[in-house]
Structures are given as C-alpha cells and as structure tokens.
C-alpha cells in the first residue's frame, strides 16, 4: 500500500561530495516490497519547490522500521533536503513503483550489478537481497571522479566491487562499459541503474543476457495518473507505452525503447 507519511530523519551525513545519506524511520518501511522501489519526497510545505522529488530506496530494514536514501544535492529540492536536521520530519509518499526481483537469479549463479552515479543506491539493497539468496554479486560502479565515490566499502562487503571514474581519479578510468569491455565478467543476469546512455550501452553490450534496467524520467504525480513519465516501448503493438513511475522504474531488458 502507498502511504503518505511524515517520516523522521534518524541521521543525515555527507558520504561523498554533495552526496547525502539520509536514514528515515516510519511505517512506510513495512510496505516496501522490492529493492529498486522509490519514494516521492516533498521537501517542505511551501509552494517552492512545488513538486515532489523521486529518490530510490537504497536499503531498508523492516525490524527497525528504517530505510536509507542516498541522494545528490543537485538543484533546489535536493539542496533543501540536504539541509534537514536529524529529528525533523519529511513528507514521504511511497513506496512507489516496481523494483528489481532478486528471485530472477538462482542461488549459486552470478549477477552483475552495474550502477552509474546516483543510479548506484538501489543496487545496494538489491545486492544485499541477492547475496542473502546465495547469489554471487559483482558490482561495477561508475562515478565522475574520486570525490563522488560512495558506498565502496558497503558494496565490497557484499562481493567483488569495481570502481570506475570518468577522470581516473579512483579505480579504473573510463565508463563502466569500458571496464567491462577490458575485463569481461561471466554472469547470468545483469541489473543496472544509471543515466540513460549507460543503460543503452549496457543493453546493447549484452543482447543475449537476462537484464533488468531501472529508468529515470521527470515526474508529476509519481503514481501513474498524470502521464508525465511515459516511455515508448520496443514492442509498441502489444503495449504502446509504459509509465516509469508505476510500471517501472525497473523493466526487463528489451521492453523500453531506448
């Protein structure tokens, strides 16, 4: 069920340059059903900024009723969010959308998790669940530069983790796809989240693999009512479009026309 809740900020800290980790507590956490779902946040109660901001759930724990978000203080909305104090409340709508299905990978198999920038967060919960299932996870995480790298240790604790930076200041130099071309890995399914050109390159690189991609799109309602976030599909006859907010944000490879 989708809730609108005033969730309490348990902690907030800058984990990399302008990247914030925010831990929120509330009943909404009980409703989360899959890694890769997101929440829609109202950063304050004025009309400025007016719209909610979609942020992925990076991890959650039903026992403590807490979830973690990781976001970049980018523009006005996330900038204000980054200034919130622990103990204060944030208006959260969620959980929204359909996430990744860890069940798609058999125990003992290898999964390739590829993240780009602020697309990295939802892969963390996914990796935790896959690992718990006995799936072997390989993480390839791309960032702009060393100062933007976050959660390297957290991912490394779950499995092999490659850091790739555009400017080469940390890990390998280049894009995640460069790294995968240089040092290919063997895997049965891939899961990816990041900028659209990256998703496109990955889908093109592994035409024969089972893959799951998480998309971004500008949103209005976040729940499927306003048609702001539609994407054309590859097979437009059976299903002319999908909505990122309610049909996605995660789609199997080959569904969305990119």
């Amino acid at each position, binding site marked *: *069920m*989708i809730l*609108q809740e005033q969730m309490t900020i348990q902690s907030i800290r800058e984990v990399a340059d302008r990247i914030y980790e925010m831990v929120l507590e509330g009943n909404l956490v009980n409703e989360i059903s899959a890694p890769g779902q997101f929440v829609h946040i*109202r950063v304050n109660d004025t*009309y*400025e*900024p*007016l*719209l*909610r901001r979609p942020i992925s759930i990076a991890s959650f724990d039903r026992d403590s009723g807490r979830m973690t978000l990781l976001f970049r203080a980018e523009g006005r909305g996330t900038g204000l969010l980054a200034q919130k104090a622990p103990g204060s409340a944030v208006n959260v*709508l969620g959980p929204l959308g359909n996430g990744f299905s860890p069940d798609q990978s058999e125990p003992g198999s290898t999964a390739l998790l590829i993240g780009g920038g602020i697309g990295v967060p939802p892969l963390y919960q996914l990796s935790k669940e896959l690992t718990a299932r006995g799936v072997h996870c390989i993480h390839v995480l791309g960032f702009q530069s060393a100062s933007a790298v976050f959660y390297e240790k957290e991912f490394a604790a779950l499995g092999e983790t490659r850091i790739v930076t555009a400017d080469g200041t940390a890990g390998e130099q280049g894009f995640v796809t460069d790294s995968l071309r240089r040092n290919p890995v063997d895997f049965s399914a891939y899961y990816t989240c990041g900028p659209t050109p990256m998703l496109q390159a990955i889908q093109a690189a592994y035409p024969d693999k089972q893959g799951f991609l998480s998309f971004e*799109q*500008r*949103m*209005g*309602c*976040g*729940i*499927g*009512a*306003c*048609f*702001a*976030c*539609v*994407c*054309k599909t590859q097979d437009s006859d059976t299903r*002319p*479009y999908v909505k990122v907010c*309610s049909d996605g944000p995660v789609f199997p490879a080959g569904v969305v026309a990119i």
Partner: protein
Amino acid sequence: MNRLAVELPGLSLKNPIMPASGCFGFGKEYGNLYDLSELGAIMIKATTLKSRFGNPTPRVAETAAGMLNAIGLQNPGLDKVLAEELPRLEQYDVPIIANVAGSEVEDYVQVAEHISKARNVHALELNISCPNVKCGGIAFGTDPVLAGELTAAVKAVSSVPVYVKLSPNVADITVIAKAVEAAGADGITMINTLVGMRLDRKTGRPVIANKTGGLSGPAVKPVAIRMIYEVSRAVDIPIIGMGGVSDTGDVIDFLSAGASAVAVGTANFVNPFVCPEIIRELPAVLDELGVDHITELIGRSHAL
C-alpha cells in the same frame, strides 16, 4: 441538510470539490489511495476519438510555485475509455465529467455523442483550451466564433449538459464565455493552463520536449481568480473554477470569485490526499466564516 451540496446542470454534487482533468487519470491510481465516492465529482483525463501517445518526454518542468506540462492529451481513445475506464468508475458513487478533446469539430462531436451516453457520465467538459497539441484544442478556445460553433455542434448530440473549458491565453475571456453561452453551453470550466516555457540553465534549450507547456499551480491562481470574477459577471451559466487550488482557503477564494464548484489539479501531485482533506475541512471553515451553506459564498467578491 448537507451544507456542502451544490446543484449544477446535470450534477448533484455532494460537495463542490473535484479533481481537474488530466491530473487524476481515470481515477484508478487515486482510487487505491482513498474512496473516490468522497469526491463531489471526477473530471477524467481528456478523451479523443483515437488513442493518442502524446508528446515526447520530458513532459513536465517545475517553475516558481507552478509547473509546466505538455502531456499532449495522451489517452487510450474513446473505445477503451467506454469499455474499461468508465465501467471501472461505476463502483463509486460519484458523477463523472468527461473531458472531450479533438482536432476537428467532427472528432469532438463523435466523442461527445458516445461518451455522453455512458451511465456515469453526468456532464461533458469540452476542452477547447489544450495548449499542448498542434491542431485543435486552443485554436477553438481563442476564437469566439469557432468556440460557439463547436459548442453548438456538441450540444446537438450530447445526452448530458455541456460545460466548456476556457483558455486563459486570451485578451478578453468574457468574449469567449459569452459566445459559448450563446451557443448553448450549460456551464463553464476555467481556467486551463497559461502557455509557458522553461529553459535549461546550461544549454539554454527548452526543458520540455514540446518546447512550450501549460503553466498550472499556485502561480496562476491570481489570473484564474480574476478571470472567474470577470466571467461570472458576464454570463448566467455556472462556473467550475480551477487554477492553483491547493487548500481549503483557495476553495473559499474561488467560490467568492464566482465559481459554483472547484476543481483541483496540480495539487494532487503535491498531496495525493488533497481533495478528501479539503472536503473534510470545509464545514469547519464555513463555521469560521459564519456561513450555513457553502453556496452562500458564491460570488461574494461582487458585493458592492
């Protein structure tokens, strides 16, 4: 006595609050959040003869106290709306106002004729003001002669009262209002969005793929209030007002300006529970204002 009840052509509203067209889809998603029978009515998404994909994305952009949208009337088309969307809404005790759009008079007429026969459609809202499609829409809304002709053509075939949705992108909105009244419109809904644009700071290019979009939200409220004030003095048919309504206080303002009922658009995105919240708060506000029945507020601004 229901202090919130309002009677309008074709519509017995248990309260004057309804979601605005395009901001509520066909009710499915919001129906998962609360009981739609609480609403006064529902204005469903624009329906066209054939299904439409709409405009390329990005389709929305935020502005100061407002937003731009250029959805482009995406909808599954008349047949699907009749076969799937409207029947699903029959589970609720709520009248539906069907928003009708098209490119040619003939499109409007066909949609109107069929959709007005659906069991739960109690009124039509003729969308002559969509700024986001190349043909039709706003062209009808800025020319009083075309607006009148379209209204008359739709009135001739509709089984339910016809409300015409006016565009604010005109020099004198009373001219269009009078033209559609003269052509037989049963009511007016206003305002649709103001045409606007947002540019990307880095590239200087429009953020919205369609370049321009329709401005809605609190930013446009003063324009909506002014136009409703003007039109309610110029015509004798009732007005359903909209444009930036976000809370109970805004509803009071729209009724005072001259609207008989109020639609909530963009605010649904900010707070999906805004409509039932307003409905629940209204009686207390009537008490505060010392008013027995909500209809007493209609047109207060005109008092000398």
